[in-house]
């Protein structure tokens, strides 16, 4: 058993390229916005650069931290309680505009909902590992897991940050699906979501407007359909090769938040089909490598944790790009590694670090396929595949 495999270098490369592309795009897209917000054209870029550097530092740290250490009640519940506390804190201290998403720390600010995603992944991985094969049994553990995740989703949802809360929900759903949760639960969830949709979307005018705008963006190009149409115009007018670095004009207040949620549209306008597909492929490679790493992990906890991280990042990426390309209604979800957003950048890069550490504790692919190692009994606390 090779317990000291090298880090997955392809994954490292892919992430670094994505982060690099992100910085170039932010540099191009943000000056006008930045001047509006901070008075200087480099403000947003500088902040993002600092966040990325901090994220890379945490990536290195996480990469060198044995991920098995996270399979510990103290770590899991501790981080859960911490993040619940932070979420509660922002709810009690809302921003001036009514939303409460930020914790202000001097010049910096932090979005606890970003951390909530990672904490949810930790907790699910931990609980699913404990449960072993008995995933479908609706026992106390499953109810606890669903309940705790539900609390997170609820807290994030009432901030309100519906985008992140959907992201959490889907990540949890996919993780449970992978773990073998019976399909009938998903059918149940679908049925349950109809009243939820009614109350959370249909009854909230601005969300409903987004859905309607998505369904027919041309109907009212200057109001709700505006964002989607502008995004399509940006990508479409980029053509095959794009207009070139910093040549895009859609970011000049046509695109809403060109540096955050719509950075992929800026990419489309400035680098065309070539740029869009490149980034898409990079995410594809990331997801493939991520799944591969997870499947080769030396423990079932590692597999779940890795898959959780890949799901979290991959789902956000696909959702964000779908929104930009007009395949999905708009939701405030950033594009991992590319969008401006310090909290997101830091958490995403840290998650990659965890994934990289899992890649270090790999069983080696062939061995796994030929002779699937049998993990300990479902009730066993011994988590490593080979320790049976």
């Amino acid at each position, binding site marked *: 058993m090779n317990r000291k495999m090298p880090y997955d270098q392809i994954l490292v490369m892919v992430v670094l390229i994505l982060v690099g592309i992100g910085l170039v795009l932010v540099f191009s897209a943000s000056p006008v916005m930045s001047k509006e917000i901070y008075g200087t054209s480099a403000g947003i870029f500088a902040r993002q650069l600092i966040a990325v550097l901090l994220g890379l530092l945490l990536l290195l740290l996480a990469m060198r931290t044995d991920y098995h250490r996270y399979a510990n009640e103290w770590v899991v519940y501790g981080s859960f309680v911490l993040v619940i506390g932070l979420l509660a804190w922002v709810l009690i201290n809302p921003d001036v505009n009514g939303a409460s998403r930020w914790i202000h720390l001097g010049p910096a600010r932090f979005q606890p909902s970003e951390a909530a995603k990672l904490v949810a992944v930790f907790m699910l991985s931990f609980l699913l590992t404990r449960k*072993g094969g008995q995933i479908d049994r609706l026992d106390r553990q499953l109810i606890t897991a669903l309940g705790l995740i539900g609390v997170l989703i609820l807290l994030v949802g009432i901030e309100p940050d519906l985008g992140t809360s959907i992201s959490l929900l889907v990540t949890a759903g996919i993780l449970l699906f992978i773990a073998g949760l019976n399909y009938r639960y998903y059918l149940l969830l679908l049925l349950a979501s109809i009243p939820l949709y009614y109350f959370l979307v249909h009854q909230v005018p601005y969300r409903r407007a987004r859905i309607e705008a998505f369904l027919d963006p041309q109907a009212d190009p200057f109001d709700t359909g505006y964002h989607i149409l502008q995004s399509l115009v940006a990508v*479409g007018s980029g053509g095959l090769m794009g207009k070139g670095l910093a040549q895009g004009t859609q970011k*000049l207040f046509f695109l809403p938040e060109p540096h955050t949620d719509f950075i992929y549209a800026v990419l489309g306008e400035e680098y065309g089909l070539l740029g869009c597909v490149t980034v898409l492929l990079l995410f594809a490679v990331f997801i493939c490598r991520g799944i591969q790493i997870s*499947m080769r992990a030396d423990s079932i906890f590692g597999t779940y944790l890795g898959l959780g991280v890949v799901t979290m990042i991959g789902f956000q990426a696909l959702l964000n790009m779908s929104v930009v390309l007009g*395949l999905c209604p708009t939701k405030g979800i950033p594009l991992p590694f590319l969008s401006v957003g310090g909290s997101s950048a830091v958490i995403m890069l840290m998650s990659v670090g965890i994934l990289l550490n899992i890649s270090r504790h790999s069983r080696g692919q062939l061995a796994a396929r030929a002779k*699937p190692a049998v993990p300990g009994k479902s009730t066993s606390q011994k988590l490593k595949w080979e320790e049976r």
Partner: protein
Amino acid sequence: MAISQDNRQLQLRIDYLRVAIVLVFLALVFKIWLLTVVDYERYAELATRNQIRTIPLTAPRGMVVDREGAVLVENIHSFNLFLDREQVLNPDRTRRFAIRELGITPSRFDRQLDQASHYPKFQPVLLKEDLQMDEIAFLLAHQTEHPEFSIFEQPRRLYRNDALAAHVLGFVGEVSENELDLPEYAQLKPGDTIGKAGVERVWNAVLTGTDGFSRAFVNSHGKILEEVGRTPPVIGETLALTLDKELQEVAEAALGDGPGAVVALDPRDGQILVMASKPSFKPNLFATRISMEDWEELIGNPDHPLQNRAIQSTFSPGSIFKITMALAGLEAGLVDANTRVFCSGSVELYGHTFHCWNTGGHGHMRLREAIQHSCNIYFYLLGRKLGIDQISAFSQTVGLGEKTGVELSGEVAGLVPSKEWKRKAFGQRWYDGETISVAIGQGPLNVTPLQLARSIGIIVSGFRPKLHLLLESGEAGLAPSATPQPRMFREENLRLIRDAMWSVVNEGGTGSGARVAGFDVCGKTGTAQTISNRTRERLSEEEQQKYVPNAWFVGFAPRDNPELVVAVIVQRGGSGGASAAPLAGRLFSAYYEKYKKPEPKLQLAAVN
């Protein structure tokens, strides 16, 4: 068993997931292909049409009002022509259209674009101000061919009373390239307006508002579809001046075309109520671009209409200076009310014969009569007693020969001669004979009308307040009669001078033209030669006409508690009594009517 089943199940579920992911990726790639390849033309067209325009929302400058809030300067709407450089497709075509069809001179067009080249492209460039209706109609008709031109409504400076108080108010103009380099104007961009003279310039920073802008979504014809962002402009602060618009009007009407100047101030607190200078100019001509002809006319006029004679021109004070001499003598203890001098019409001093204007002589003169009849001999002899250095020092005490410090720029100091001055300026010693000329306000003595008014204010009230044009809050009414400040001179001396000046106006003296029934106007006339007698003798009749003396009148009222000092100079007016005093009289009368006249009896209102 359960375990390996788990593993297999895990593998199965992962495979499902992989299929789902591949499908999503395919959908995304397909959509990218649809957007960038299939529908490229359409989106490219939409993107070029998708233009945002930045529409400048020029902040109006603050208003300027008089002491009672009457508007002197305000703003009106004006339609200005701008060029949006982002919309220019063919620069040559744009330039040709601007020059041939819109009547912009090539030099202006190139200069404006050249200046703007250092500024962001989305900022429209100002090409022409104050478009007329036919120009606007023409441009709108050609908007489709030339979407790069836009018309924006902007505030324009309006001097409501045209030339009234033009020198005080000043004018505005487009900031020049050199001015843009000054730190004071660092925030500005080409096309912005700044104050170039007068109050507009001195308080430019206060008057200037904060420009706003609007970003609007426009279609391919430049029509504004929707505003996407707006920073509203903030109007500049309103300035309240100490000027009294009604009195200013009276003064300017009385001056006619001049040349001359009128100043009126409150000696108790230094408020300037009137400052008029003629000939004048119309600041409204500068509010848009001044035409070449108008400019050349202003510059070519030998009487320099742009010059503010009240503070930028100096004149010999002539006999007005006798008042300063009188108080100097009294304060120095060299003369008193009863000191008598005999005027025979001339006197021989230092080997020269000095004449009185009354060649027949005034006979015995005390100070009061000497002032009343403006006897030269009395003041020749007083001047000899005082000596130039005492005269000089006392003149400075009453503020002559130095800037008053009024808030306008370009004020000159004038000149009070002294021995030291002569030595420094000419390297020569002072001749005592020169003192004699100075004693009657001739010689190298030069003052501005404002200075002279202030000096009389100081002499008759004994206070020396700082002159000002900006009305401070709570100052709007006339100053209270009791001022706690200690008086600078002995009260009895002041009373003597005030009485003497009263007699000039009210007891058959030279200033009777300034008399106002019911109002104790006091004053002193002056007739100041502009060349020396000896030079005059050498000139022909015709040339002598050009050097008619300047006529002065400086007065105050009421006698016992002066609250208004008026100085009038009519250049080439001849005798002060004939041309300056009646003019001052009209101003005193207007002041009296406005502020001092007792309320009409109530019965008048109750007749019906």
